[in-house]
């Protein structure tokens, strides 16, 4: 039995959070913050050995912990990570730290409870990514809802109750359908919740389809895919900065993760059969989300809708069922977490100073906040997928993968790049360029704490943009294993490009060999 690192990662923040509840609220608010920060930093440090010890050559679950839990239903406490899940654990830990930092001053009421909620949320999120037992997964999945509901409902903006309720109902309805699906799977699949065992089942296609849509209800709402996206703008707008960051950074990734972890391996025939509807919904999301951004007058709402568009790219990548597109999709899940997380961090910082989210209240901010303007410009460029930033690599792989299977899909999706540049640069112009709004003549530049908060995102944007292989290498084996389960032709040039595939492969081999070659 090796060291239970995953349990430690799940329960360190949970137990830490519970312990912090014991601190008296009046006296030591400051020390609660410091403690919470220390716990979250320790958590991130603990995730690093995971990255180094991970064996990239196997698709098997690693760091496995397996114990019987509720024997009568064969429910296990079964943890493990593979190349699809592993990267999200350090990302969750990092985002939590940044959320704590950005809330340092902006949270004034119920301070202790806020930081406790953040830690509990962190534990539950990491639990979701580590669960190999479907029931355990469901528990963490639902457990996340509560702190998130509170973050919006307690520390949110003026319309927070509406937003929190909408968020809760949307996700709860989806989750309940998933629960029905899980139980059905349990009954039909030989009384087990073990995901790996379930993936070995050969369910009839009819059953698979029903289950696919039951899971879809939960995952699509979380992503959110069009047309079940309308909770997201409200939730983002009303949530405090930290809530928006964690929502964009991790929570909505869970939906895409769910497709990868459950729908695809357990229901491969249904996934193949439903590929086209999923692609179409993704394309609608990309274009629709982008166009709606053009009409937004509220800063956070705009970024929220841009998430709908970006998440459309991610689900497109996943359901294009091609090596490049799926790897691009997973990478883009991380990228979107980093970039949109960073954008919401930045918006939180500026909101703290201006207390307005209306875009038209801004203008010329680059004059008085040049440092902030530089940071935000980088985040904007990453969001529009400029090469050299992380956004480019993800989008490129997704588009390339979709093009290889269906050129017209890439054609429509690529139009999202034009719209994306339009609304993001327009937003940037209205906030940072144009004549200076005299209201903000005395606005304060970022302080050191805020710069420290944004720096990790800057580093990640460039690191992933320039050295994406350091992340992609974790996925290769797991993704090809996943695709083998779903489709017989993962590199497939399925239709559309009527070229001799062997030509392409020949050239690929030559391409690989031309390295270090001095020509002529």
């Amino acid at each position: 039995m090796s060291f239970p690192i995953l349990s430690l990662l799940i329960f360190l923040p949970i137990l830490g959070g519970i312990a912090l509840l014991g601190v008296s609220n009046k006296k030591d608010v400051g020390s609660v913050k410091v403690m919470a920060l220390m716990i979250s930093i320790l958590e991130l440090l603990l995730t690093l050995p995971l990255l180094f010890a991970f064996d990239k050559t196997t698709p098997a679950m690693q760091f496995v912990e397996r114990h019987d839990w509720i024997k009568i239903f064969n429910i296990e406490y079964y943890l493990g990570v593979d190349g699809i899940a592993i990267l999200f654990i350090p990302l969750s830990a990092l985002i939590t730290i940044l959320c704590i930092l950005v809330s340092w001053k902006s949270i004034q009421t119920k301070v202790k409870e806020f930081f406790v909620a953040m830690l509990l949320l962190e534990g539950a999120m990491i639990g979701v990514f580590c669960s190999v037992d479907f029931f355990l997964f469901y528990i963490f999945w639902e457990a996340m809802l509560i702190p998130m509901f509170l973050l919006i409902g307690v520390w949110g903006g003026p319309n927070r109750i509406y937003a929190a309720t909408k968020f809760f109902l949307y996700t709860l309805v989806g989750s309940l359908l998933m629960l029905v699906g899980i139980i059905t799977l349990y009954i039909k699949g030989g009384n087990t919740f073990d995901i790996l065992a379930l993936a070995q089942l050969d369910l009839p296609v009819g059953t698979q389809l029903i289950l696919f849509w039951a899971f879809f209800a939960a995952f699509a709402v979380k992503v959110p895919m069009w047309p079940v996206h309308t909770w997201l703008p409200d939730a983002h707008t009303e949530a405090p900065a930290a809530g928006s960051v964690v929502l964009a950074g991790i929570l909505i990734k869970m939906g895409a993760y769910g497709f990868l972890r459950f729908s695809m391996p357990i229901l491969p025939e249904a996934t193949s059969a439903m590929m086209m509807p999923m692609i179409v919904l993704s394309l609608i999301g990309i274009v629709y989300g982008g166009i709606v951004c053009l009409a937004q007058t509220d800063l956070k709402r705009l970024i929220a809708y841009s998430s709908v568009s970006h998440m459309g790219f991610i689900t497109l990548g996943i359901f294009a069922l091609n090596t490049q597109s799926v790897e691009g999709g997973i990478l883009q899940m991380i990228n979107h977490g980093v970039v949109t997380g960073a954008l919401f961090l930045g918006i939180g910082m500026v909101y703290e100073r201006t207390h307005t989210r209306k875009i038209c209240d801004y203008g010329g901010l680059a004059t008085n906040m040049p440092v902030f303007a530089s940071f935000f410009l980088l985040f904007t460029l990453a969001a529009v997928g400029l090469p050299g930033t992380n956004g480019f690599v993800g989008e490129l792989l997704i588009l390339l993968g979709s093009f290889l299977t269906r050129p017209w899909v890439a054609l429509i999706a690529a139009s999202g790049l034009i719209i994306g540049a339009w609304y993001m640069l327009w937003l940037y112009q209205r906030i940072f360029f144009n004549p200076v709004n005299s209201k903000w003549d005395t606005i304060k530049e970022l302080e050191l704490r805020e710069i420290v908060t944004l720096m990790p995102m800057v580093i990640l944007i460039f690191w992933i943009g320039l050295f994406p292989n350091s992340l992609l290498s974790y996925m290769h084996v797991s993704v090809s294993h996943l695709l083998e389960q779903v489709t017989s032709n993962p590199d497939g040039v399925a239709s559309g490009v009527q070229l001799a595939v062997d030509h392409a492969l020949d050239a690929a081999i030559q391409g690989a060999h031309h390295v270090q070659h001095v020509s002529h």
Partner: protein
Amino acid sequence: MPTYLLIIPFLPLASFVFTFLFGKRLGDNSHWVPIAAVLTSFSCALYAFSQVKSGHHVNQDLYTWISSGTMSVSVGFLLDELTSVMLIVVTSISSLVHIYSTGYMKGEDGYYRFFSYLSLFTFSMLMLVLGNNFLQLFFGWEAVGLSSYLLIGFYYEKKSAADAGKKAFIVNRFGDFGFILGLFLIYASFGTLHYEPIFANVDQIANQTFTFLGTTWYLPTAIALLLFCGAMGKSAQLPLHVWLPDAMEGPTPVSALIHAATMVTAGVFLIARCNPIFTLSMTALNVVTIIGSITCLFAATIALTQTDIKRVVAYSTVSQLAYMFIACGVGAYGAGIFHLFTHAYFKALLFLGCGSIILGMHHEQEVKYMGGLKKYMPITYWTFLLASLSISGVPGFAGFFSKDEILAMAFASPVGAGKFAWFIGTLVAGMTAFYSFRLFLLIFHGEFRGTDKQKAHLKESPKNVTIPLILLAIGAVTAGNFGIPEVLGGNANWGHYLEPVVGHALAHPSHTTEYILMMMSVSAGAIGIFLAWKMYIKKPEMPKNIMERFPTLYKLSLNKYYVDEIYDFIIVKPALLLSRSVILNFFDIGIIDKVVNGVPKLIGQLSSSMRKMQDGLVSHYLAYMCGGAVFIIIWMVVGA
């Protein structure tokens, strides 16, 4: 990887990082690091040229950038004849613009920011030309777009400047849309994005077709046209030219460096680089030639009437870029790159000359308020004159050799549209001479038309401005000497040098033909200059008369054929309307949210009506129970 090759792009990158982070503290001295960096790059570029000349090519990867499945792309450098020429153009012009900017931008807010952006641009452009694969080209392609966005919007507090920067970026995205699809199609066809294996195996697509949504395309045509989309955006060809004139909002040194000499020529470079693909498709070559010809004429006719001096030169740039595309379209890639080379010097000189005038006029750009500047600004005058002679194709000057080569190649080309392009090209040669000398005469000759205050301050620009002008003037006069054709006693060195990359030109005009064509284009230029002299010196009332005779034509030209207004009407306005009214209000809020909020409401109503059933009367409960039991029994019987 040879060190000198690494220095060329990465020193400007280091300079950008340094100046961006610490430049503010250096204040007025923040230009030293960027200048030192770009001059070093220039020296290394010269060395690289000598290396290529002596037969040392480089094609090496630095590291694997992206790999996924069978796809793998590196960051790597390719140094060959074409790259070596581009390196010299980029670093030499960039060096001069750096030096010029110490005078032009003196005392401006954000002086350090300006120089850091110049370094960023230089790095990006060098990455673009040095890449050994399409993805790195795309990296440079987008990065120069970013630098351009930042520099156009340098005076960001001015809304028009911020608008122009954004417009440049977005219009280019339309081109990039095609470009990236082109890259995908290349990958689908060859399984790699690296130049060498692609161009070595280009024959394998020669007879391939590509089926898309039921239409069948000849594969080389599809690839070439998609790549050309990108080139149209970056090089401001019709219909994606609209961003370039607006880009004049940027500081003038930027217009010279980015929007005349280097970045906008990236599209020409792209086609020259991909010449093996374009050569496979007559259709693509014809499209390039026709788009080039139309743009050439279109932009020149606009330049005839503009009164903002920078806009005249901007439209002239669009028109000259079109010449380069004509050259590529008729399969004379070497001639295209030749014109790119000479144009870089005379056009940069024209822009920097405009900058010198704008300095002298205290940021006045309207030619209406100029006139008679000759005696106040002699160096600017003489250098501007040399540039104008060069662009007008006066024999002996750089522009003459490159333009005439293009026209000869077009005339003799087997590409169908070649003759058409030659006709337009010769016509536009006359127009070019006319609008160039119109501008020149209106600025420097006649009476001063500005205010007395402006007149009192008129003086020649400082040395750091005039020395780059003089150096560029040398280029504008002599750059053509590298490619003197055989008919004029030269040995066409230029073409021979580039042949390993771009191959032989498709056309081989006879010497007699070349002489005749040359005389025609020179006469066209002479007529243009003569008309300008006649209309703006001899009979100054003539322009007005012509204006009144042809008011519609005049208005069309003055208002740039209303293309901006048309785009606003068919793209911008509908998109915003769709966004606001249809999708957001009608669909998102009107339908989806109504449903979402409606369901809980419905449940609420349902439950409150259900509550009425629980009225506490046992007899009612009994009735419900019986009803339920009967229902279950019936259901079981029927169901069984």
